[in-house]
């Protein structure tokens, strides 16, 4: 996972509520056994006018109406979204696809729980800000070509072009992991002794949980 401290980048607005993970990366692209290659199919059904199967990406027709395809938003690394972003399936391919496309942070009034977690584990920052701020951002982004904000994880604030600071919160533990680019397995194995101790206790309390081997 890439560490993340601070990022100033172009914002792309996706004005839909309940954007689900099937929309973020449709299931026909989940058959890969690696972690790479999903970026080209991010928002596939909206981004292209033709179906992807049987065609190479270069042969496909982008949908000029879809916001990610508009010239003014090329190179955007921050996605502005609506409520309940990332609902639906638990596929971690969704944050992988967003990251590979180049998105490093998503600003929305709320996220679905599993997507939220999956994003943090991959260093994709899900930032929750109040509805009113999101409404204002949608207005400003659409009215101002080149609109960029700064996401500062160290001080936990989104800094708008006029200097306004919008605070947000990330759990201290998660924040530390992202700032340092730490992975969960390595972190958990520090507590090997605690896990073994817990198991010993449970073997006595609830032995039926340990009978299969």
């Amino acid at each position, binding site marked *: 996972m890439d560490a993340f401290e601070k990022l100033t980048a172009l914002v792309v607005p996706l004005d839909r509520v309940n954007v689900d993970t*099937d929309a973020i990366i449709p299931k026909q692209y989940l058959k890969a056994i690696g972690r790479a290659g999903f970026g080209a199919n991010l928002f596939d059904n909206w981004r292209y006018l033709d179906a992807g199967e049987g065609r190479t990406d270069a042969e496909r027709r982008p949908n000029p109406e879809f916001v990610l395809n508009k010239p003014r938003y090329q190179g955007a690394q921050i996605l502005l979204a609506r409520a309940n972003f990332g609902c639906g399936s*638990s596929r971690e391919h969704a944050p992988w696809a967003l990251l590979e496309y180049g998105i490093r942070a998503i600003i929305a009034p709320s996220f679905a729980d599993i997507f939220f977690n999956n994003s943090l584990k991959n260093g994709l920052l899900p930032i929750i800000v109040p509805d009113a701020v999101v409404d204002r951002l949608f207005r400003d982004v659409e009215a101002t070509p080149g609109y960029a904000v700064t996401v500062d994880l160290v001080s936990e604030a989104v800094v708008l072009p006029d200097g306004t600071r919008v605070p947000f919160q990330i759990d201290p533990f998660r924040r530390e992991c992202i700032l340092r680019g730490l992975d969960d397995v390595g972190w958990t194995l520090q507590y090997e002794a605690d896990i073994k101790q817990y198991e010993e206790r449970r073997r006595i309390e609830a032995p*039926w949980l340990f009978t299969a081997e």
Partner: protein
Amino acid sequence: MMGKTLYDKLWDSHVVRELPDGTCLLYIDRHLVHEVTSPQAFAGLRAAGRRLWRRDANLAVADHNVPTKDRALGIRDATSRVQIETLDRNCADFGVTLFAMNDPRQGIVHVVGPEQGATLPGMTIVCGDSHTSTHGAFGALAHGIGTSEVEQVLATQCLLQKRAKPMRVRLEGRVPEGVTAKDLALAVIGRIGTAGGTGHAIEFAGPAVRALSMEGRMTLCNMAIEAGARAGLVGVDDTTVAYLANRPFAPRGALWEQAVAAWRDLHSDEDAVFAREVMIDAQTLSPQVTWGTSPEMVVGVAERVPDPAAEPDAARRAGMVAALAYMDLKPGTPMVDVPIDVVFIGSCTNARLEDLRAAAHMVRGRRVATGVRALVVPGSGLVKKAAEAEGLDRVFVEAGFEWRDAGCSMCLAMNADRLEAGERCASTSNRNFEGRQGAGGRTHLVSPAMAAAAAVAGHFVDVRGW
């Protein structure tokens, strides 16, 4: 001292260590594995030279990609085949118990776990699939996880989690004739919305829930995730215990007695306090049909397609307009006038024996309407066998349904079973998202009885008094 909710009891008994900010290292008793979300996790273990923490806690089955007919011919789609072969190889290399594609016990992971007794009350259960909430029907803390977490559980038997807020949905009264657990689930989502349970674990309680079979409770908990809650829960009672007796993975003899005694405490205490409570009178509910592209876009079958013009909230109104355009429906159309092209009876929501019985009951001696393609995909090989022993397969086949092998199938259309663009489907699955059952396909979520009746009529019908 204040009483505890079921969620709190389950959580507290699994905390290995708590960090100052409240993040907990939570111990996982059962890990279910399938082919789509595990390859990158096993690859991660290999790359780091790590082994499994506890092999016997894992159970694997291929379900998402498997073909549902002509299995003997193998899998034609090369990428699907590689994914399933990768699961086979990973399970062999790491020593994980696997129900391979041709094992008679193979099926959808959320049907197989309970059927085998691998799902037990009081457990923490995870799987790289959001409908893991299903297993909460047994008074277990069960939720979906991402692939990084799959790797973490394989390597450490633990997850890093924050406590969710306990929420209770009470379903009061008696469920009327023709109304099923699926209708209860859709009605709850219609009421609280697809984000209504975000950050919460939803306990389903009340007489209407107590009266449900385990199959019905699984259907209800299965769809907790569609209400935004990672976990659904039902407290343990006699129904739970009776279901589990003599299942292959369940304890036996003295251990069984000891386990059952412990399970009796797995319900919320009388004086437990919930962060949020919702009350719904089940008596007033009717069979439900979704009309849009989110499970919260749902109405009773006797109602009409709603009019976005009546929606005051602008963002919601825009969502409704987009959904109606995608679904090709006009506001004000009675739901029973909506014609269908395809019927899918299957998925981890509604492909257990009880579901197939309910569907067969509607089609016995009738015929699928001309022009309608209808298929039944049992939830597991064992469900299929049991249904065949009762002659349900003949009922379906004689009516013109296709009778398939177990798997996820048209629930998400990763295999060859899918909708063509523009086709409209009455489906017993759980998601009606755009393209979910095939690019351009239109999904209406309904109960098995409603789906079966629609197959015969060629359009939605009210199964009450059918």
